[in-house]
């Protein structure tokens, strides 16, 4: 298995060695819509049985990537292999993958059983066999009682389960999920996250999951692929992505963070110090190699900022707001401002002068991003 940190190597021609190990391979895949480069030179290996999440803001190319794998779009360049088989030009109905669509796309004119059995029926599977498999999958989805209803008579969560059942009953090699929880309310979304995880464990199918919600990605994924502007920014396990982001974009997108511009003043191995102007100089670990004098961006998580009242300090509390379980304070220091999270009851009055302190091991330093 390739280490998730190493660059993904293209599979050798024929790709036989990858059978059983790699479910989907993208190799230098590119897709352009008019002037927009939706997917720009994406290479990716998806391991069999893995729960992989494509994470990024809207327009980052994650959905397009999913649609390329599903066969709804054809790449302009690059190769897509499913089970080591090149699927270039193959329409969706020939690919061993199934999709759970964003708005479920259940057939309104068919009842739940017929929706789920739709693919099997057209594949010419025997009627009794269809009935058995449909019942089994409805059991697995914990919706055994809704078989005779039409989609519009179901709740959002039930529709979600029917959509999953309809795709999984086809026993695909890979299940593609396009923001499937997007239209559910918060509580249901939380429940479904655990539910999806359970289903993934039980069926053992490869899941490729698209979302813009970093929390969703963190909860469910074995591996997260962060995308931005059609490119892969970073891939790795949830903890790795959170603790060791490789770019300021990733740091900013995964969890809250303060991104502050500065100039590198010293480098020692993978440790460096950066002058942040009014905020002073901080030390931290380098995400990419930088030299003294290079412009850099520093990521400081609001949870890592310690705030102490100090009448002589230059930083001033600008605003204090209650955010659920903690208090967020916006603190201005010269031109820049930083957010710090403190426990409830520890919030300070706006106007208070404070001193800021951060552990250098919690700080990440990145090359300045192209604007």
């Amino acid at each position, binding site marked *: 298995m390739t280490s998730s940190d190493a660059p993904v190597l293209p599979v050798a021609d024929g790709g036989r060695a990858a059978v059983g190990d790699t479910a989907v391979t993208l190799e230098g895949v590119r897709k352009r819509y008019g002037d927009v480069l939706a997917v720009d030179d994406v290479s990716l290996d998806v391991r069999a049985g893995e729960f992989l999440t494509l994470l990024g803001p809207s327009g980052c190319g994650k959905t397009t990537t999913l649609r390329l794998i599903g066969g*709804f779009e054809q790449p302009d360049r690059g190769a897509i292999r499913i089970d080591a088989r090149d699927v270039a030009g193959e329409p969706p109905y020939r690919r061993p*993958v*199934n*999709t759970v*669509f964003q708005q479920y796309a259940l057939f309104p004119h068919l009842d739940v059983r017929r929706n789920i059995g739709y693919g099997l029926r*057209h594949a010419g599977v025997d009627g009794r066999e269809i009935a058995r498999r449909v019942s089994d999958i409805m059991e697995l989805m914990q919706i055994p009682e809704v078989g005779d209803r039409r*989609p519009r008579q179901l709740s959002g969560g039930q529709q979600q389960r029917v959509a999953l059942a*309809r795709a999984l009953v086809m026993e695909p090699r890979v299940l593609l999920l396009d923001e499937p929880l997007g239209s559910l*309310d918060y509580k249901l979304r939380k429940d479904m996250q655990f539910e999806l995880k359970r289903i993934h464990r039980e069926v053992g199918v490869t899941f490729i999951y698209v979302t813009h919600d970093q929390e969703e990605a963190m909860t469910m994924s074995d591996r997260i692929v962060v995308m931005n502007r059609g490119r892969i920014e970073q891939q790795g396990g949830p903890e790795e992505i959170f603790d060791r982001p490789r770019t300021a974009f990733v740091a900013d997108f995964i969890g809250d963070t303060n991104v502050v511009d500065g100039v590198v003043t010293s480098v020692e191995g993978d440790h460096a110090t950066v002058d942040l102007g009014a905020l002073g100089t901080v030390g931290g670990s380098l995400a990419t190699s930088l030299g003294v004098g290079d412009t850099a961006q520093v990521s400081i998580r609001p949870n890592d900022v310690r705030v102490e009242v100090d009448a002589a300090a230059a930083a001033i509390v600008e605003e204090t707001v209650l955010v659920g379980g903690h208090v967020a304070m916006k603190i201005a220091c010269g031109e820049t401002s930083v957010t710090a999270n403190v426990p409830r009851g520890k919030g300070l009055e706006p106007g208070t002068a404070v001193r800021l302190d951060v552990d250098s091991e919690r700080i990440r330093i990145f090359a300045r991003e192209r604007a």
Partner: protein
Amino acid sequence: MAPAAPIDVLERPRGRRAGRGGWLLGIPVVGWMTLLFAVPYLLLFLQSFWRAGAFGTVTDWNLDNYRAVFLGDSFAGNIYLPTLLKSLKIGALVTLCSTVLAFPVAYLLAFKVRVSRLRMLIYTMVIVPLWASYLLRAYAWKVILGQDGLLGSVLDRVGLGGTFLNDLLYSEAAVIIAMTHIFTPFMILTIYAVLERLPGSLIEASKDLGVGRLKTFRSVVLPLAAPGIVAGGTFTMGLSSGDFVAPMLVGGKDDVMVANQIYSQFGATNNWPLGSALAFVLLGIVLILVAVSTSAEKRERI
């Protein structure tokens, strides 16, 4: 937190905004409709049970007019029922032809034309003929189908001119062609209206589940477009079987339809009671048609 309710676009919000005097607002409309719609219909209905005298209608209650419609009378013979059936046949053919012509156009508009300007252009081209008078459009077919008409002279040029065209104008075929032309735009609009609301993701979902293009069309697009086809078909069938302009202009002397017979009972023949009976039989058939198609549509909705 409220559980996510299934989205039902068909459900209308039920508000009770009208105060107590709200029904007063309905008086003008109800009055207007009663005076100019219900009353004449009632008079016509009553008249259909009366008798035509030498100098006008005689209030002499009987069922002879309806008997004449279905079994014929001594004066004209059994001409009414066959004409009625022929009108329905022509109506059905017009409906079939315009559906077959309209569906591909509506489908293209809804799914294939991605450039919105081009879609607008095609849409406008469909609508523009509706702004021209019906009479004008029916007349246009005289110019096209006539012996020295547009079609004939073009075919002559390319050496395909022949006798078959001589019989085209003033025939049942001409009536069907003219009416198909007139009703196709309505068909396109009603079918487009349902296809436009059909989410493309349903087609993608079908393909995703391993179903090819043709089968997807048959098992997803067609059933979901059915309400539009039924609505447009009912409209076309109802109006075309009761049409009298097209048969008058481009039909031959034998291509009289039921509406022409009604027209002549109220005109030259001067037998209003028989005309009324004919009109009510036609109305009854159309109402049955509408009822059947509405219930079919309702069943489809559930």
